[in-house]
């Protein structure tokens, strides 16, 4: 039968579907220059204003333990310390909010075009996740351009190590966004819920302050927060400071990502 001949194997079809959905996300990201600029300027301002302000404005708080030489052993100053944290923040926000494209697609009716295509629902979920994470990784990479201004030296080797790492973390976080977006109908609702989730995730990740010596209740929240391990490993690669073993970081992020991806796939398959 001609229809069957045209279809190819299910795996072939689904891989093609994933690629197609990925391509659309990346192409639309690239086309939307104002979005790229906005998503770059915001964390840059955050870094420069907050980093400089807190670092210079309230030095006493940090000098008690360590003296005036360094912010932390091996970390020159506060700005250097939060730089990897801000990269993680950029990835977090971009990942989660790229998932909004699902709600947008539903609103404009385009999701139907995808849903009646001869590909599996899980391929749709994975394609969306890959698309969003690629966008988040690219956005995170733009933050690397700030390194010279902060006084952080990045070697070619560091950058090459960072690319797959940023993609890995992005994938995990995008899967979280997709899992949430697949359940939601309104953009406003999604934005509210996601702000409610991402801000505490960011604050409790050790992006803005060292995680040693926190009160017990906060320590627990920091440790169950998957972003903590993302910040930790980016910091390990960028400025060589970390609290956990890098392999452990990767393990936690990967596990969280798989769990979220499973939820995203399930949410897509369940929908009629």
């Amino acid at each position, binding site marked *: 039968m001609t229809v069957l001949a045209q*279809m190819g194997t299910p795996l072939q079809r689904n891989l093609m579907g994933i690629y197609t959905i990925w391509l659309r996300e990346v192409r639309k990201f690239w086309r939307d220059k104002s979005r790229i600029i906005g998503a770059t300027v915001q964390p840059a301002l955050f870094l420069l204003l907050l980093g400089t302000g807190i670092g210079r404005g309230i030095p006493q708080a940090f000098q008690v333990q360590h003296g005036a030489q360094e912010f932390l052993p091996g970390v020159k100053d506060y700005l250097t310390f939060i730089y990897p944290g801000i990269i993680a923040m950029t990835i977090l926000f971009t990942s989660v909010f790229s998932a909004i494209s699902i709600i947008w697609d539903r609103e404009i009716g385009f999701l139907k075009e995808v849903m009646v295509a001869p590909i599996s629902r899980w391929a749709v979920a994975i394609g969306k996740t890959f698309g969003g994470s690629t966008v988040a990784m690219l956005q995170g990479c733009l933050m690397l351009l700030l390194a010279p201004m902060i006084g952080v030296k990045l070697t070619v080797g560091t950058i090459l190590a960072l690319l797959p790492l940023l993609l890995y973390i992005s994938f995990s976080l995008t899967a979280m966004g997709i899992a949430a977006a697949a359940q939601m109908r309104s953009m406003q609702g999604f934005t509210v819920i996601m702000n409610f989730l991402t801000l505490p995730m960011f604050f409790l990740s050790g992006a803005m302050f060292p995680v040693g010596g926190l009160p017990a209740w906060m320590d627990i929240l920091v440790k169950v927060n998957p972003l903590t391990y993302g910040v930790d490993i980016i910091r390990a690669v960028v400025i060589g400071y970390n609290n956990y073993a890098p392999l452990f970081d990767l393990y936690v992020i990967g596990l969280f990502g798989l769990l979220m991806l499973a939820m995203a796939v399930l949410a897509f398959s369940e929908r009629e």
Partner: protein
Amino acid sequence: MTEMIEVEHLHKVYKTKTGFHTAVRDVSFSVRKGELFGFLGPNGAGKTTTINILCTLLKPTQGKAALNGFDILKHPHAVRQSIGLVFQEPSLDERLTARENLEFHALLYNIPKTLRAERIHQMLAMMELEMRQDELVRHFSGGMKRRLEIARGLLHHPKVLFLDEPTLGLDPQTRSYIWNYIHELKSKGEITLFLTTHHMDEAEHCDRIAVIDHGEIIALDTPDSLKKTIGGDVIYLTTQNPKAAKEEIAHRYAVQVHEDPPKGLHFEMTHGAEFIPGFIREAGFKITSISVRRPTLEDVFLKLTGRKLREEQPDSLNLMKSHARMKKR
């Protein structure tokens, strides 16, 4: 295989807050290969639900359906590859160009690389969109978008093209334009067309029509045969005393007389033109106007349901929706 679509005892029940709503009730029919088949019925009659089931977007509560020989539950992907869809509501990515929308579709349906460019070119040419293929779809008019959707639906050479209210919200000129395309497609004889409409004049174009109301098929035949179920012609008349006239006519000619306030009274009569002179002579009431007309599908629907299949108002809800969307951008 001459039957392209076979549907047997299809049921769809939705759970609602207050209980259950049966959207499709024991629907059975089949569509032949190459046929232009229409679903005629008011909004909410179950047309779109049935299409969504056939397209594997919805699962039936009960019943069986096969399309192009594939069972919709067992081989959904083969069914999907066999069909093209033009949805009631727009489903294009307006931030991509016309060509990109088609490229996306070609990739999703796994059209071989060697064929892709050629097919896209063919479809754009057929729908007369070549000149604007690299423009963003958001700058397109409603008619152009609908044409692009038809082009997209045909791109992977489906066996069946579903058109859910293909001319909804389009101006009359664009409507006849779209219908020319549909006839052109049909004349090639390779594709089966399945459309839904609540416009009588559009249903007239179909080879066969299923009249659907409250989730049930209440009649299924060619437009001509359906119209023959009306006893001849329809006589319309206005009078200053409709009540008395209604009684008198019903009594004297043993027919059912319908009252339709702005238009007056109407009833069915064989050989209407010959009937009128005698009727006027014998009438015991003053006739202000009278006319005779061949029966339409509207009359068929009225006869079957006792209700009129009213024209939709230019759907104010949808207008508001699209307006709200524009604002968000």
